[in-house]
């Protein structure tokens, strides 16, 4: 589905890998905002940790010249998403208003085809019914549904915040301002490694950051046209 600039917004995230410290603030913020259940130790061991957002850590080199690189990975909101055509029931669907990829939980039958076809492996399957030991359920965000067992879920760019922001702007009869809508992860990030905005708004921060020479897209060769841009980590050299 081709995206047309005629209407809507092109919500975009910039991830500055140079600033990401791997501190997990975004991960916990995402759990809190999106009612993502916590996986038990056994589930993690079985490779079923549920995080809409994860920070991948890659080692480079060997002691003593070893480096650890952090790469926050979440749904890339592909413009040309591999998960969309494979879903037999249109549960994975491309929004023409936000221009992101949307997962419709109550349509999902749980074929998990989208999960297989996502090269980023950011789609999370509810293997069990989500569990919140009482009274932890008091914390659940009323703007976001708790997903039933058997459905796929994933990062939504905090669409509830996008919609709320748009509604607020509509009520006040003004256009959206840059920085008015911030997903939970970017909101929490202490180092400002995550920047969110509308790429089609020329004056937005993201629109100005995208042309950076440090910019790359994750698995760009697959042609998925992600709406998440990464800025490569730099290095200031000293010594040998």
């Amino acid at each position, binding site marked *: 589905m081709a995206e047309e600039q005629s209407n809507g917004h092109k919500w975009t995230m910039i991830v500055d890998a140079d*600033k990401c410290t791997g501190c997990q603030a975004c991960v916990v913020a995402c759990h809190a905002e999106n009612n993502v259940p916590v996986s038990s130790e056994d589930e993690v061991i079985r490779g079923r940790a549920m995080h809409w957002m994860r920070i991948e850590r890659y080692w480079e080199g060997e002691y003593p010249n070893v480096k650890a690189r952090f790469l926050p990975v979440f749904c890339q909101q592909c413009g040309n998403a591999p998960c969309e055509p494979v879903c037999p029931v249109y549960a994975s669907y491309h929004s023409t208003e936000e221009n992101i990829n949307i997962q419709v939980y109550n349509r999902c039958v749980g074929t998990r085809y989208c999960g297989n076809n996502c090269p980023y492996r950011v789609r999370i399957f509810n293997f069990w019914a989500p569990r919140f030991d009482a009274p932890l359920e008091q914390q659940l965000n009323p703007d976001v549904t708790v997903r039933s067992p058997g459905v796929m879920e994933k990062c939504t760019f905090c669409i509830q915040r996008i919609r709320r922001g748009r509604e607020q702007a509509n009520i006040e009869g003004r256009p959206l301002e840059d920085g008015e809508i911030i997903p939970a992860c970017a909101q929490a990030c202490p*180092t400002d490694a995550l920047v969110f905005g509308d790429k089609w708004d020329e004056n937005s921060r993201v629109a100005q950051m995208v042309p950076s020479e440090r910019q790359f897209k994750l698995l760009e060769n697959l042609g998925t046209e992600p709406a998440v841009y990464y800025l490569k980590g730099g290095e200031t050299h*000293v010594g040998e």
Partner: protein
Amino acid sequence: MTHLTRRDFLKVSAAGTATAILAGCAQETERWVALEPYVRAPEEQLAGIPNWYASTCRMCPAGCGIIVRVMNGRAVKIEGNPEHPVNRGKLCARGQSGLQLLYNPDRVTGAVRQGERGSRKFEPLAWNEAINTLYEKLDAADQAVAIWTGSATSGHLCDLFARYAGAVGAPAPLRYDLTSALNSVGALAAANNALFGQATLPGYTLAQADVIFSFGADFLGAWLSATGFGVEFGQFRSQRFGKRGLLVQFEPKMSITGAKADRWVPVQPGAEALVAGALLRIIADEGFGGAERAGLAAALAGEVDLDAAAAACDVPLADLVALARAFAEAERPVAIPGGALAGASNGVAAVTAVQALNALAGSSGLGFTPALPTALAAPGWSSYAEVQALVERMSAGQVRLLLVHGANPVYDLPPGSGIADALAQVETIISFNPLVDETSALADYILPDRTYLEGWGYEVVQPAFRGLPVVSSQQPVVGPFHDVRPTGDVLLTAARGIPAAAAALPWTDEVAFIREQITALPKGASGGDDDEVRWARFQQHGGWWPEAAPESAAPELAAQGTLDVAGAAFDGEAAQYPYYLHLFPSVLLGDGRGASLPWLQGAPDPLTTVSWQTWVEINPTTAQALGVDHGDVVRVESPHGAVEVPVYVFPGIRPDTVAIPLGQGHSDLGRYARERGSHALHLVGAALDDVGANLAWSSARVRVTKLDKKQALARLESTIDPGEDIHVPF
């Protein structure tokens, strides 16, 4: 259709198929499929209107400002307060998880009495009875009362406790816990006092620094004020004209700060002072940074064996020279001491040696928290020597009543401190903690305080950022979730019966006390000409701080003479215990408080991606020599104790060092923490450092024995080695 031949049939089917395929490919599917996004809620459904309340985070003592989203009386999300000078709208994982303390399933839901200590059988107690009991015990104990507070104790409560103790003539309340030990507040204050005549915690301005040399301080992870430093670091990496600064991290085990460093220097534990001294020596010898800086360096640096320093860093001397040059020639260099080096036996000397580096460039990046215009001040931290004194008094039966608030001494101290035996000698122990922790399990009464999201308070922030003094406000964002009472009110009520205390604590409730303290402050950045408005603004904006930082000069070097660069001493013979033990607070669980919160347990450790567990990090070379791999359980044994933990083969650690995170190994603290992992503090002795004030918690050597056991590590990352061909995709 009577003469449908086979051939015709095939023709027709082929044509039909072709048409269908062509039609299907040529058009967007939307032509036939009407899609209505379910994410659009039905029109008649109104989203609730959230209320946002400003308050202060108490998951660690940094004093970050938070705003809490409350919908229908439920707190649903904590975010950073954008106005707050410390965290500037940002919040770490631990701060986010405060909600799970509020709604923790294992909270003590009301006042309880424990018949037999450690039985964990609690009988409910009516609050008037509980307060009466507190009064009776206070009255009976008179001067023989001891008060133990910690990171989770609000500033106002520290003040109230101190006033009470002063009034009845009891020793001043203790403020000590594992957080203060791991932050090495004692060593930092002592070093600052020696160098600059300022016995407080240091603040650093990193945003404009061009070079940061951090010695062991995981200032992006779990050290002092990580969120505030995180904000500074973000700005440090994106300075004007594309400048991104140089960060060099000296530490034996890579922390997340080390991971973000441009250069990670694996310095041998205990040799940090030597390396700092060597840097000064090189600057002095080579005349780096101009005559003034080199001269200052020469004055500070004594005789240093440069080759030994380079060897201790596992780097060539040329690299050390290059690093010294980079530091000396920088416009605004900053040196940060902290972490394990400050917990070594030479902790104060090591911190002093590193901190002295700042003086070279006029300490432009270093700052100390300015005093407030009123008498309001941050409560001081107690030293471990004071803890020892109290433990001795308790053991001697001189303490009849112990009040514990916001600390967990049984978990926070190494077993060698004798805390468990000492507690047994105390007639009555009353805990005010919200969960049954290891200390509450030994208490006779638990009179649970409100959690910080339900209660009042303030925090005088230390260290402050950019020289801005801050009193951060804490207010209830939701009604109390259980039948719990604020300890301040409980104390004020009980104290009314004790004449001396009643005179010293005349306030009707704690809010009156807080209000009095706050309204005494002058007009701050949020304005307010009269008391009423100032009090309201204090709550509304999340605290009080001046519009601009008060004028203050960069810290002047007060000390004279050369630095002490002697190495640290370690417990255990090198032959018997071949490895240094490097303990570090978990980025997520902190000093162990986080272990009761599933979000923090379930979030992966940044570097190992392990959740829910304790592990020991071992260098690949060492692991090979020991014949161990990921998930092999080993016995790590020091002269003081032993733990059994699974191995994580960690590339970023010295081969002569093994590292274990702290935070797990609770015997209490609720279902998520209990019986999970190991508490590596059991490997540490209870000895004081060289200056005789602080716990030398980073001074153990260990041996590692492979056991015939395996424990699968709960890693988020793949457990499969991708091999040589697979390249990191960036």
